């Protein structure tokens, strides 16, 4: 009778743990998923309202800020996006430590019980989107501040993030737009070492090298970029975002029939970056482009954390096993094992409103007003028309999001 009561107590305890854990882990995702669905359905304002952090647990606030900041960017609310993404950066910096309380929870429940800190690439893209927002609102000095912050993230994870050519080029452009020519020159040179044949890099690097009196260097990059545009010409820079980033999937590894490790992974993706043609004043214009696959980078970022994740998963498996074995009876042990088996869940949280690719399109144009048509050849031809005022020697910024 005593044994039966003990077993019931263990079962009740286990059930409580399951329900509490499910509530703790599940609620956040529902709210954020709702917002994503609303955004995809075209209800941006509803999505932004759904991402209010008072409805979302603290551990998912970073994710909520990321999604909200990007939706605000896409709707043209660049200052709103700046405020939201700066909150995300502040939150990320304030959580830059190992939390003992969360470590305990994650060892018994799952990684989803911890505060989301973003993949390395996602941490960089907070600064990438802030730079774009500041450039689009002509706050060049603030764009350069974000460029410096981006460089810190690059330095910390250079092995992966060096492949993000878009963000590096944006960093150089931000420095140059703020008149911080030396920083722009160094950033362009580092990027030119990675993509030596890119005319989107070589042309600007040649101009900056010449302005700094580095004439042999200017000539070297002039040969790559082709003939120089007129000294008094300006430039249209368009940030083209296309597609939607891949989502993390849950995978399972059965160590024993009653014990498993769940882990997140990115399935392989195959995409073609859209080709962008530009017309201004009725004539097709020369362009130079540079693209980054966000799908590839985010998968590399996750893979780079692979060893840490594996070590933690092994520790969790051992902790769960020890917890189950400490139960008062075999029945209780089996019940606990079953509960902990169910609780094991891969942490598939990620910034899902991001595009699959980012492309920088640079178009030299003479000063003055221009009616511009951008044409994308990807999953059928699409275009967008806008007018733009080009200032001599300056860059003017626009953005375009392509779905599909």
């Amino acid at each position, binding site marked *: 009778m005593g044994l039966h009561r003990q077993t019931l107590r263990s079962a009740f305890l286990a059930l409580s743990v399951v329900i509490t854990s499910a509530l703790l882990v599940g609620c956040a995702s529902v709210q954020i998923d709702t917002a994503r669905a609303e955004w995809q359905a075209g209800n941006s304002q509803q999505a932004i309202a759904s991402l209010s952090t008072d409805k979302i647990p603290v551990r998912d606030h970073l994710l909520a800020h990321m999604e909200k900041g990007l939706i605000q960017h896409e709707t043209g609310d660049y200052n709103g996006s700046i405020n939201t993404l*700066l909150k995300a950066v502040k939150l990320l910096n304030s959580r*830059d*430590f*190992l*939390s*003992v*309380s969360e470590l305990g929870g994650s060892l018994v429940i799952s990684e989803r019980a911890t505060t989301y800190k973003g993949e390395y690439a996602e941490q960089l893209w907070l600064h990438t989107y802030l730079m774009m927002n500041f450039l689009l609102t002509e706050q060049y*000095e*603030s764009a*350069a*501040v974000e460029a*410096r*912050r981006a460089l*810190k993230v690059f330095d910390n994870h250079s092995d992966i993030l060096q492949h993000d050519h878009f963000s590096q080029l944006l960093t150089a452009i931000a420095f140059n737009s*703020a*008149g*911080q020519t030396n*920083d722009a020159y160094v950033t362009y040179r580092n990027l030119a070492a990675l993509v030596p044949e890119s005319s989107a890099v070589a042309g600007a690097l040649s101009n900056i090298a010449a302005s700094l009196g580095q004439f042999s260097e200017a000539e070297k990059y002039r040969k790559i970029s082709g003939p120089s545009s007129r000294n008094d010409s300006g430039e249209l820079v368009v940030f083209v975002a296309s597609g939607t980033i891949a989502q993390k999937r849950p995978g399972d590894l059965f160590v024993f029939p009653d014990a498993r490790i769940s882990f997140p992974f990115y399935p392989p993706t195959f995409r073609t970056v859209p080709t962008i043609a530009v017309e201004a004043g009725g004539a097709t214009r020369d362009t130079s482009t540079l693209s980054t696959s966000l799908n590839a980078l985010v998968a590399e970022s996750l893979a780079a954390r692979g060893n840490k994740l594996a070590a933690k998963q092994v520790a969790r498996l051992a902790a769960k096993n020890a917890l189950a074995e400490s139960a008062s009876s075999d029945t209780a042990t089996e019940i606990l094992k079953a509960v902990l088996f169910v609780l094991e869940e891969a942490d598939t949280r990620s910034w899902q409103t991001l595009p699959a690719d980012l492309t920088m399109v640079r178009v030299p144009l003479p000063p003055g007003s221009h009616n511009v048509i951008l044409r994308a050849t990807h999953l059928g031809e699409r275009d967008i028309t806008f007018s733009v005022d080009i200032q001599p020697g300056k860059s003017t910024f626009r953005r375009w999001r392509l779905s599909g």
Partner: protein
Amino acid sequence: MKMHTISVKSASIALVVALGAVVLSGCAATTRDLNPDDPIHYDASYDFSDKKRIVDDLTVSLLNSPTVPVASGVPLLIVYGVANQTSEHINTGGITDDIRLALLQSGRYRFLSEAQRDNITKEVSYQQGGAVDPQQLITTGKQSGADYILGGTLRSIEKTQPRQWRLNKREIIYYSLNLELTSLTTGEIAWADKVEIAREASRPIIGW
């Protein structure tokens, strides 16, 4: 035996109550006034104590400088701001506003308002629109011209301790603010000075 059990139980309750009281008192909201003259830093980044030190040092330097010619009277300055070349979003307008205030109050310098130029143009245009008494119209073409431009650059260099086994993460930040006064007549830099601030901060790698 029973007596012993009761005393252990009472001690446990007392301990729980004491711990609860400590936790609750730690969570209570508090406010207090600070003396802005006392340097206070919560971390290595730029704060109001740094701004105060920069303003105080550069104001004293400029007021004590014999290099700014004053033969033609009190020099007239225009502020073109301090460029922020740090990795923090710092409103450097606060620095130049405070320096301008201190210099104005000293009586050694006069200032033109660059920020109000558009408003002045708007107001003058309104006055000339016919609604204002002609006797009270502002005379145009009488604005003063600046003798000097006051401007500068705030820079920072940051260094974080490399990854290794440790309990604290250390960070060093160096700030320098260079300020200069450029003559509009000759283009010459009549005065320049700088303030440097270097600070190390550490924070635990493990937390609650």
